[in-house]
């Protein structure tokens, strides 16, 4: 099978962010980067599908700056066969502009399955994979936590609020991956060595025009310091009293 996975370079979130000088971006000073969590599970899904159907190719694609090559190498070291970097110094905040560039690369690639992570944890949007599917006129099944592909079609499950849907779809298709589908493999030393020799092609991203702009970014208000009501079960009556009279929480 011919499989594509789209991944994004995102900051590691275990930091306190600062707002950039323009007031509409995050200050990138000192940030570390990794592959977006959901995209690692998308890579894993692609590798597992390829292992079940030997003889195929897994192509990993990322839109971002030159440095996103690091994230592509990580996917190659996990086992993807080749990589394409769609170079853009800044990733637009409008998901559709990104989707157009990815669709331009994926169109004509003759892929049986195109995987995305469910969402990028930096933008917090959940739009690009689905938009790419629309632009390519492919069936799209977003946010799957169960997936079975065989015989040119697939079945999947996705979570709703308080329920789940079972879906059927034909290939080729676009699938976005939710947590719970799999656990990503760690790159082996052999994989890391092999990745250095795998092809990584760089070309300019054909970004669409952005119609959604970030006017402002702010840090959320800090929560006021709380208090320790007490120790052990003796503190329970006071806690319940505070919840009822002060917080009016129930």
């Amino acid at each position, binding site marked *: 099978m011919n499989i594509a996975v789209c991944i994004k370079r995102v900051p590691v979130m275990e930091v306190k962010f600062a707002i950039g000088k323009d007031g509409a971006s995050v200050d990138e000073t000192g940030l570390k980067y990794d592959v977006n969590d959901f995209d690692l599970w998308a890579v894993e899904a692609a590798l597992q599908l390829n292992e079940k159907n030997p003889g195929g190719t897994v192509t990993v694609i990322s839109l971002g700056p030159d440095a996103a090559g690091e994230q592509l190498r990580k996917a190659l070291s996990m086992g993807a066969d080749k990589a394409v970097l769609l170079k853009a110094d800044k990733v637009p905040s409008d998901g559709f502009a990104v989707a157009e560039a990815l669709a331009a690369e994926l169109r004509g690639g003759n892929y049986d399955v195109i995987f995305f992570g469910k969402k990028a944890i930096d933008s917090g949007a959940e*739009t690009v994979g689905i938009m790419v599917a629309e632009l390519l006129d492919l069936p799209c099944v977003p946010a799957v936590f169960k997936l079975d592909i065989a015989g040119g079609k697939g079945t999947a499950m996705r979570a*709703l609020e308080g329920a789940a849907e079972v879906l059927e779809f034909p290939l080729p298709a676009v699938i976005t991956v939710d947590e719970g589908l799999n656990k990503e493999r760690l790159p082996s030393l052999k994989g890391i060595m092999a990745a250095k020799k795998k092809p990584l092609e760089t070309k300019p991203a054909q970004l669409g025009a952005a119609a959604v702009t970030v006017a402002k970014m702010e840090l959320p208000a800090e929560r006021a310091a709380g208090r320790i009501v007490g120790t*052990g079960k003796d503190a329970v009556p006071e806690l319940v009293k505070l919840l009822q009279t002060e*917080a009016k929480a129930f």
Partner: protein
Amino acid sequence: MAHVFAFAESRNGEARKAGLEAVSAARQIADQTGGGEVHAMIAGGPGVAGQAERLKAAGADVVLVVEHPGLALYNPEAVAATVAARIKDGGYRAAVFSATSQGKDLSPRVAAKLRAPLAPDAVALAVEGDAIVVRHPMYTGKVIGSLKITASPALLSVRLGAIPVGETAGAGRVETVPPAIDPAQGRVRVTELKEGNTSTVDLGEAPVIVAGGRGLKSAENFKMVEELAQSFGNAAVGATRAVTDEGWRPHSEQIGQTGRVVSPELYVAVGISGAIQHLAGMRTSKTIVAINKDKEAPIFKVADYGIVGDVFEVVPALTEAVKQAKAQG
């Protein structure tokens, strides 16, 4: 004076709370952009037209009913085609969706079909001059972005619970709209809806959430968390990623960076240390209570009220105390 479109999500023939919130959000935009009409669409199997009154009460001037046996379960391609066709013909200023699983499936499909801008997952919205501006949590909630759209139609999805359902006189009219494509032609087919335990409230709608972490030590001990949730009467059970990774609870209950993002009236964290990934999913809760044996646990930094102690001792006592308080109140 342009009108505003809303898509009102339904399930099993009933409008969802999220759907009514989308209608009320559209009402807000219409009122702030010169008092145009709100046109709210609901799609479902035969009988879904019966929901029209609820949509009117939430702020719809016109209810657009798409009724078809092939829409009894969500049909992504048929619904997206029908919504896109209506928005295209309607000349709307904006179109509002729910930022639920279904709305997050539907809204990008429609945006791409129309090549219209989409601002996702709004927690607040405002009309500023000729622009619609939504506040949208980014970087796992550590940054709040203001996304601005000037073009029409501006598409947006609103987070569950962000916009309260309004109450209006409900004098609207009803139009029937046929599906834009035969639902049988949809390539992606939902074959089954597996309902969760319907006696429990969904995390996104629950006013109270009791969540458990690794401090509970086993799946069996979550019974204690469930009992505390039951004592509140309207609480949902949540869990940390450590817990769902262990398989103690299903992934659907995970709260955090890669799971659900919630902001209930009351969040009770039981045996949760407060890893940054977990805080990303619950830090906007109105009141946070933490119970943890380690007084240095980071959860106490975001908690309004904390009890330092053994969860196996404190939680059953709290359950009893809440039951008693409920019985008296």
